[in-house]
């Protein structure tokens, strides 16, 4: 909420012309949920600083935002960090307060526009969720900034609560004024990863406009675009196309997860293997239980063999995402005939799951409490009884390969357990013998000595 831009360019008072704001007066600009104040705490020839201070009305924001966004919006609380963090509000304030400078205009001293000037910037505070210091550096350093960070504790009384995601950010660089502002305009919300209003196509245009000179060359452009657009895939793709950097449509990325460095390959490989197994089983009617956003379904649709594909998930939101991904509304009727999606909980008996040849549970079981697995076993293996059931789950032995993962931690916050290969086999063997299935186990991903592959798969086949 606080931004200070200082320069030691001589005479430093030129900053007033550059920013198009008079150093002797405090000024204010109206924003949708508050005001921005502009003032100069120092203005000497040696050094001049201009501050942009946001005064956001959190209650107004809560009430306004809730109308716009529906209930799941994280800002929908009275207690939130929005008034104190440099976010997209800051971008809006920069654009409104310094529009002239951002557009590269300086009527009084036009020669300064194209000059790289020594700037120091202080932002209090930035939030760098899911990325932290490394991310901040990756975003600013390639643009020539020297980065100085101070990370804040959550609460000094409870040190064991650890550090917060907030930093006081200090930058210095020799840079053109308009570039400095456009960097801040794009990168601050990308860091923050939390939009203050609903994301729309207009966002893409703003991003392309502010980033046109530099974003295309930035090594982290993809991450910047994704974070700026909050991982809205279609928008991200549109933006990447705008930057003439579109990749193959298949190369989409999901939300950032801990195994991300390998995820692209691992998850795709996993789905491919599951799809192969399903094809090999000879199944015609298949269930994708816990289909999530529908990636496996996309693969299954391509196989003529599958005449009926049913995807279920406990999360209605995920199902909607899957529908998005599959272009549900515009799907060809012949394709739509083959596929159904509905909400189901695998701990409740569900007759809609009966009569299928095969079922896949890809990275699903670890999202259930271990003591609820018995219900799942009954529902799938006891009652629905497809001829083939494929179950995949992470191999916890492999976790030591993830550097960012502390010992004993799990790969995903919603994982209730992660099993070693032996634990998985124990469960599978007992289940198979109880429910009259035979079972085989397979590694998923590249195997390492002693610890196995990152993920594991069990294929259950109903005994005749």
């Amino acid at each position, binding site marked *: 909420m606080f931004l200070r831009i200082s320069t030691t360019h001589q005479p430093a008072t030129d900053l007033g012309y550059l920013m198009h704001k008079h150093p002797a007066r405090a000024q204010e600009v109206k924003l949708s949920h508050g005001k921005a104040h502009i003032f100069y705490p120092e203005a000497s020839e040696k050094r001049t600083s201009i501050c942009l201070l946001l005064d956001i009305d959190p209650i107004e924001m809560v009430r306004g935002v809730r109308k716009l966004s529906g209930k799941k919006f994280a800002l929908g609380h*009275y207690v939130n960090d929005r008034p104190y963090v440099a976010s997209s509000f800051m971008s809006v304030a920069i654009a409104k307060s310094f529009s002239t400078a951002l557009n590269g205009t300086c009527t009084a001293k036009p020669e300064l526009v194209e000059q790289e000037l020594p700037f120091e910037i202080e932002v209090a505070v930035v939030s760098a969720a899911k990325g932290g210091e490394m991310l901040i550096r990756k975003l600013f350093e390639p643009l020539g900034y020297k980065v100085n960070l101070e990370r804040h504790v959550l609460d000094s009384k409870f040190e064991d609560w650890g550090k917060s995601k907030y930093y006081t950010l200090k930058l210095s660089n020799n840079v053109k004024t308009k570039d400095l502002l456009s960097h801040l305009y794009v990168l601050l919300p990308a860091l923050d990863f939390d939009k203050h209003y609903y994301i729309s196509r207009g966002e893409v245009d703003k991003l392309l406009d502010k980033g046109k000179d530099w974003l295309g060359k930035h090594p982290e452009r993809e991450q910047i675009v994704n974070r700026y657009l909050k991982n809205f895939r279609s928008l991200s793709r549109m933006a990447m196309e705008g930057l003439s950097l579109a990749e193959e449509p298949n190369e989409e990325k999901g939300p950032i997860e801990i195994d991300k460095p390998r995820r692209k390959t691992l998850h795709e490989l996993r789905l491919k293997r599951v799809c192969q197994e399903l094809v090999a089983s000879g199944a015609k009617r298949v269930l994708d239980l816990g289909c999530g956003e529908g990636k496996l379904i996309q693969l299954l649709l391509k196989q003529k063999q599958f005449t009926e594909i049913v995807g279920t998930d406990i999360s209605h939101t995920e199902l909607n995402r899957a529908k998005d991904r599959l272009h549900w509304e515009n799907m060809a009727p012949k394709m739509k005939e083959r596929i159904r999606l509905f909400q189901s909980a695998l701990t409740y008996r569900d007759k809609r799951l009966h009569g299928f040849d095969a079922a896949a549970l890809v990275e699903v079981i670890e999202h259930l409490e271990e003591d609820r697995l018995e219900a799942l076993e*009954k529902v799938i293996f006891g009652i629905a009884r497809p001829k083939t059931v494929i179950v995949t789950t992470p191999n916890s032995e492999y976790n030591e390969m993830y550097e960012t993962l502390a010992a004993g931690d799990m790969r995903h916050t919603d994982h209730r357990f992660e099993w070693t290969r032996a634990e998985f086999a124990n469960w599978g063997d007992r289940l198979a013998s109880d429910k009259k299935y035979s079972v085989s186990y397979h590694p998923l991903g590249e195997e390492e000595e002693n610890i196995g592959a990152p993920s594991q798969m069990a294929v259950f086949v109903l005994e005749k």
Partner: protein
Amino acid sequence: MKIALPDMSLVLLMGASGSGKSTFAKRHFLASEVVSSDGCRAIVSNDENSLAATNDAFDLLFYIIGKRLKNGLLTVVDATNVQASSRKKLVQLAREYHCLPSIIVLDMPLRLCEDRNAARKDRSMGAHVIRHQHAALRKSMRNLKREGFRKIHLFKSTEELDTVTGIEKEKLYNDRKDLHGPFDLIGDVHGCYVELCELLAKLGYQITEAPADESNYGIQVIPPKGRQVIFLGDLVDRGPASVAVLKLAMSMVNAGHAICVPGNHDMKLLRWLKGKNVAMTHGIEGTIAELEQEPASFKVELRDFLYKLVSHFVLDRGRLVVCHAGLKEKMQGRASGAVRSFCLFGESTGEIDEYGLPVRYNWAKDYRGEAKVVYGHTPIPKAEWLNKTINLDTGCVFGGSLTAMRYPEEDFVSVVAKEVYWEPTKSLTTAEVLLTSQQEHDDLLDIDDVRGKRIVQTGLMNNLTIREENSISALEIMGRFAVNPKWLIYLPPTMSPCETSASEEYLEHPLEAINYYKKRGIKTLVCEEKHMGSRAVIVLCRSEAVALNRFGIKNDGFGKCYTRTGRNFFAQKQAALEQAFLEKVRAGLDKANVWEKFDTDWICLDCELMPWSAKAQALLKEQYAAVGSAASHALPVAITAMQQASARGITDLEELLTKYKYRDQSISKFIKAYRQYCWPLESVDDFKLAPFHILASEGQVHSNKSNEWHMQKIAEIVEKDSSLFQATPYKIVDTDSEESIETACSWWMDLTQKGGEGMVVKPLDFICHEDSGKLLQPAVKCRGKEYLRIIYGAEYDHPSQLARLKKRGLSRKRSLALREFALGIESLKRFVAGEPLRRIHESVFAVLALESEEVDPGL
């Protein structure tokens, strides 16, 4: 003259065009009871004479009839119906819904029909058409009975028609909703006369000899006052004295002391009595040998007796259904061959099991009806309830026992068989079972019992509707986070705050909370301190064995402590802590003699568990401490910069500076506010548990006790172990006394100034109604000034903010609180009454669903 039709009937009108069917229908039936083919033509084509629309029109006609019959409504089909093929389809439809087909024939003179048609301007029907119809009608007449019509009314002239003054709806034979019992229901007797007499004696019936007359067979039975026996069929075969059993039963039925439904054996005997060929197997040979000794007149009487038996009865306002082999909900109170067959044999899947016996479809597993179904037919070791159904055939003839159930008491009385009269094919005693059939069945809930739009009946508020989108949210939470649903016998309701305070300084003040009740005529209130922890429901058994027996829970300990959304209070990796905590709670309850005091071996407590930081760690870190950290590191930098600018002589910053200094102070207060409710949790001894309701124990939901009673009983527990339990200080307030109200207000002031969260104001009675009968809020909360910072933000008490916050609407929150309260009590009542899990879960699930309704998060 009134014409009689069965109550639940599909009535065809038959007659040529112009015979007066529509006029007749209009005169004698409700408009909604009549479905006309011409009307359907008009709906699908805008032309009620369109022949092209015939197929669509009849599709619609069948659809409407199907819906009406499904709902058990008499339906009249206004179409010519002169073709056998069209009648056949309708008869089939009636059978599908187990309704009786009837027909009213308007065989009017041909001339009359022709004249009427000629007079109609909107229709140009050739004379030949009417002639054909007339001929087809005549031809149909003799077949109607064979086609399956139960009632046939024929009218041959307008004069005859005009004598009809109305319709008399006849009750079906099986409709005995007017009989309320009490009953003694007895399972399959199979000729076990000695055991039957013993059982009747045990039930209090006196059996004496009497001079024989044509109806008593020399037996006189005096029942206990007002009671009646219901025989569930299969009186005969296999056992030693089928005829004696028959005579006793017939005597009792004739004297009005018993009701009897037929069993498959009884009906087989009837076939033999009628002279049909029957296979001399399964014990009929013995019965026949006995009958050979009887006079021919007895056989005739027996034949008549058996012939008149009705397949099943719906009794006691529809709450009880009795039959031999069970009956699905959609067949109850209906009549068809299929219903009769189900009543006699149940439904078999066509498969044969390893003993060579037919595999029976377990209809009871899927039973969702409201009526209790009592039946027999399949011998089982022990009678037990499953989804409101119970089989009383405990295999007496196979050496088991003869069982009776008293209704409505639901006590069981049984007599052990004197000997094995007939070797069972399949052994009656099975392996030791841990769970009852109901518990076994309840191991899995069915998604169809929770998904979609639901209507839940509650004792406190009648029918509550749960919208589909809310069920969707609840399913996700239940499926992903909730503990074993068998533990979830209750979820707590949300609580509304009081009206906003009239005073300028406060958002909430106790005066408004007290006035809420005072205005509604409540004289005595209980004001309880509100502890700041996390809401916790504790369901605790005296031992793991109790968890197994009463809750049907295997290998999941003797208790659970769960949150308001049904999630385990303890994470999986805290299993040891959870165990220690539950043991500590149990030890405390042991010490306080709770089990003896409440005569129970399990208890359900509504509590606040502290510290807040134990469960809300994530919330604290991600939201409260995070905001505190962000603000306290951003604000000072801004303040310093403004001070620098002011020092330079920039003048217009004073106001802004003041504002930011105020913000900085507010943030400090905010941090202080949440810190009070946090302390490190190193061991089980750091927990504090403050119970405030003793919700339920065996046989009792304690919502009939006063809130003061709850406070007192809890105080008795707390004093036994104050290291874990924390008392809830409370004040009784007399709403007629200003002084008493004043005392409560200053007490609140005192509590909240010391950092307390605030207080909860409750009426003395746990469940409380307005004079108008409207249910009142069970509690209203009133939160402290500092505490509210963590709800509405650090600066909420700034006059500009406060003014806006005061514009808050409570009606939605209040309505939710009431509905959730009603559902919570409902689920407890259902559990205490021993209802199936799905019934308890329905109510608990509904609370969770309502919680997903959007309300202002600050309330």
